[in-house]
């Protein structure tokens, strides 16, 4: 009995304190807002927002609601976080491995990259990529096309847009290819475990991925056209590209800055992970005749990943949260669109800031759950 109370009491007290604190601040907020003639509520979310946003993944203009504006900002934040995480992981892994290279030049330049980008404040880097790099880019009419179809200008990167016919058939063929690859891989694993035979899974996968979608072009009635951006004159010295797909320079600068900055930390995680593996493992693997590539892929990496994943999760979370610096360079992310313009127009600071906080919290928790799941999957399964 005594034991039980001793267990429950601290928890009860904690709960009580939390409830009291929360209640106190809610009460405080209510009385203060009432005395200043501010009302509280989320009704504004369904009102017309009446402001436009530069870049949106879904259809949006000022006649849509504030809730829709919130969604636009959220999707833009997720877009930057998604692209940023992928690019920073690729750069991070390459640089991390390069730092362990026996080649002096490669090792030193990787180290220089890490030390340089890691030690400059992120906001400064964002400003650098936006203002310094932006000024260096040509005006639309002076841009030299890359491969004849890409145009990198001060007003953004303009790329050809795809115009699909029967896109759904193509999509299903891709899906079918992926599913069959997974099945073949599982089968190959079984064969190797039972008979020791190796099936060249990689080549089969690549050819499947190429052949199946290609077939749809030949017999499935799928066709693809490119819409190349065309220069259009707005005024005597003002030009813009029309048609195709335009990526605003704000998005490019922000993604670049976030990816290059976060990649340095990921590179250090990767290096730590690989160095954390006992040297004997590598030597033992080499002594049984594995090639250096196989040593890295089959022996070192699976063990190193266990060390790499948890700190890398932190870096993914950091990248996502750092994306809120977008407001400084006019990229319409959640903070700029919702906690910026929408907050200003409605004046509902408490409602909007708490929604924004909840949103970032949810995104972070979601990434965290995902990475924890992956970490568990690759952890040593002790029997």
């Amino acid at each position, binding site marked *: 009995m005594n034991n039980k109370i001793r267990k429950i009491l601290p928890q009860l007290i904690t709960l009580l304190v939390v409830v009291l604190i929360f209640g106190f601040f809610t009460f405080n907020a209510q009385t203060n807002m009432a005395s200043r003639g501010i009302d509280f509520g989320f009704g504004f979310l369904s009102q017309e927002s009446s402001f436009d*946003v530069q870049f949106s993944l879904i259809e949006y203009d000022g006649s849509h609601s504030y809730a829709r504006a919130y969604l636009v900002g959220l999707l833009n934040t997720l877009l930057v976080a998604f692209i940023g995480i992928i690019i920073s992981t690729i750069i991070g892994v390459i640089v991390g491995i390069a730092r362990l290279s026996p080649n002096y030049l490669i090792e030193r330049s990787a180290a220089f990259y890490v030390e340089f980008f890691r030690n400059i404040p992120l906001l400064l880097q964002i400003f650098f990529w936006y203002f310094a790099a932006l000024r260096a880019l040509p005006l639309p009419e002076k841009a030299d096309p890359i491969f004849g179809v890409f145009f990198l200008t001060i007003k953004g990167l303009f790329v050809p847009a795809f115009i699909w016919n029967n896109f759904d058939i193509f999509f299903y063929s891709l899906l079918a290819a992926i599913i069959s690859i997974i099945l073949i891989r599982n089968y190959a694993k079984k064969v190797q475990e039972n008979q020791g035979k190796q099936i060249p899974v990689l080549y089969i996968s690549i050819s499947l991925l190429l052949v199946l979608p290609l077939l749809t072009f030949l017999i499935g009635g799928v066709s693809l056209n490119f819409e190349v951006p065309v220069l259009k004159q707005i005024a005597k010295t003002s030009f813009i590209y029309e048609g195709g797909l335009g990526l605003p320079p704000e998005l490019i600068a922000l993604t670049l800055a976030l990816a290059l900055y976060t990649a340095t930390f990921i590179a250090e995680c990767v290096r730590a992970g690989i160095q954390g593996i006992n040297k004997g493992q590598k030597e033992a693997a080499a002594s049984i005749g594995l090639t250096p590539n196989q040593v890295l892929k089959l022996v070192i990496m699976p063990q190193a990943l266990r060390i790499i994943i948890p700190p890398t999760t932190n870096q993914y979370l950091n990248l996502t949260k750092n994306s809120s610096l977008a407001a400084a360079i006019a990229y319409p992310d959640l903070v700029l669109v919702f906690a*910026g313009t929408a907050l200003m127009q409605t004046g509902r600071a408490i409602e909007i800031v708490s929604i924004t906080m909840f949103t970032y919290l949810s995104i972070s928790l979601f990434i965290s759950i995902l990475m924890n799941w992956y970490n568990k999957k690759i952890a040593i399964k002790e029997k």
Partner: protein
Amino acid sequence: MYKYIKYFLCLVFGLALLVGCEQQGKKQSKSDSKTLKNTIKKGFVRCGVSQGLPGFSNADASGNWTGVDVDVCRAVAAAVLGDANKVKYTPLSAKERFTALTSGEIDVLSRNTTWTLSRDADIGLTFVGVNFYDGQGFMVRKDSGMTSVNDFRDGISACTNIGTTTELNMRDFFNSKGISYEPVAFEKADEVVAAYDAGRCDTYTTDKSGLAAQRTKMTNPDDHMVLPETISKEPLGPVVRQGDSVWEDIVRWSLNTMIEAEEYGVNSGNVDAMKSSDNPAIKRLVGAEGEMGAALGLDNDWNYRIIKQVGNYGESYKRNIADTGILPDRGPNELWTKGGILYVPPAR
């Protein structure tokens, strides 16, 4: 479980920071103004200004603030505390300004703020008057060949600030013209100027006074011009918190005093001589007759000090906006007696 409690606590403290900033102005009766009392107790007026808009509120290298918006705060300080220099300035972005005022961080917001219905009625603010009649315009590069908004074409990109009425007017304007445009909205004015200057945008839009002031910050100011059209009404004026009518009256009549002083030809140079004027309206204006101060909870020399220390509206305009070459022509900001629309209720 503990993990969730942890997250919950984080959230609670976050909210606490938001709302717990200040607990002020809870109960208010007409005879006792908490803001006035606090201001006298602190010994300075807490004034919210812009982060640097020449002519309106701008700090020089040694941190001295000047501008017509700053002069409103100086007038309030002269009236309430007897010294126009007893002002503490807080530079605020467009986004922060109303929260700073409603949360009690500042007591007067004098930051080229447009008076609109929703701001006045919905978010706990009260506008006390207009110290500058403005309108939204566009700036373009001279070599673009654009000479009017009728030259705008589909695909034009426009740089502006977030959190201002500008974003809304811009949408109304382009929609009514049926032109598709790319809004590029920054949080700070300096970044808007930098991006437009770099060629990111074809046009820069904000209040015309702002355009005139920011043009001076460009690499080559002469390469840019402001288009003649005005697409909106932007009456700019000082704002106070809702619910303290005494303080509201003090700020309103400090501003009105400056404008009325110009109307009657009273300025910082002749205000002493005007004490013995024959005109009763002028005598009331310089505190030599009537009990105007008592009605506001101040002494009777409050308006005399405003004119003596800050000057009348005309002096303030000339010093800050005309002589600095921002907008030499007063346009609508001329007195009603001289063809403008500056018209204030009489101080009697």
